């Protein structure tokens, strides 16, 4: 899978799993901040993303500091997954 496709897949998963009902894939820009002023995700959403990484991509994130960086944006998250899964 190309990184571009992975980004779109992540947007779909995030909308579905985090119940962002009022958003569509096109509303999420690749470099939008996932937390803070961007999508305004909260701490429970962060935990859901950690579960999603493990369940869907087999990546276990255990370092909170690493999480802060990995969940910066769709671009960063997709690159992180691609590096570890060769997707």
């Amino acid at each position, binding site marked *: 899978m190309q990184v571009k496709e992975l980004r779109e897949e992540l947007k779909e998963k995030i909308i579905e799993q*985090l*119940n*962002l*009902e*009022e958003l569509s894939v096109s509303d999420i820009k690749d470099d939008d901040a996932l937390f803070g002023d961007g999508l*305004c995700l909260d701490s*429970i*959403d962060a*935990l*859901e993303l950690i*579960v999603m990484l*493990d*369940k869907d991509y087999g990546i276990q994130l255990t370092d909170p500091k690493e999480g802060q960086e990995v969940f910066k944006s769709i671009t960063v998250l997709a690159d992180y997954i691609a590096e570890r899964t060769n997707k």
Partner: protein
Amino acid sequence: MDSKFNIQSYTHIRNGTISLNGNTLFESETEDFSTFIKEAYKSQHIEYPKFFKMDNLSKLAFIAADIILRNTSNSEENIAIILSNKASSLDTDRKHQESISDTDNYYPSPSIFVYTLPNICIGEICIRHQLFSENSFFIFDNFNPDCLWVQTEHLLKTKKANKALCGWVDFDDSNYDAFLYLVEDHGTFNHSIKNIKELYLCK
């Protein structure tokens, strides 16, 4: 037993209908709660994206509270919240149980787990309306106006709160019933156990 306090307004959410003070605000023919409550949310022009992340019990309590508090609430009014139901958070508890029952596919959802307590719905109401007041959630076999009355009278008489949002919010396996009422100094009905019973039973 009469009181110096009064029921200012009340709301029901049951059988696909939302009413305020006996007047229908919204009706839907759908029997699916998720569809119904989403339609209700949109019909009331509420803009609160976190609504979609709540469990069914919290969605039910949130909409009922919003209908009553939309014109009255702010933290300065010190509105206590006293809610009750029969099923506690059982509906969400079951969903959590399902997510941890398979040891080979063990991925409990944090966003489901946080709703495995009934009083979380009070938290959602407090966040929405910026309330930092007294609150309680009771589990009863049936609607229990006597207990709600005693608790409400105590909080208001001792001035722990200026108003109290009270009632019943029950959700289990697609069955739902909400009846909330606001008690304060002024209102149409005296805050009596008899009146609470009658308002709960009316459509």
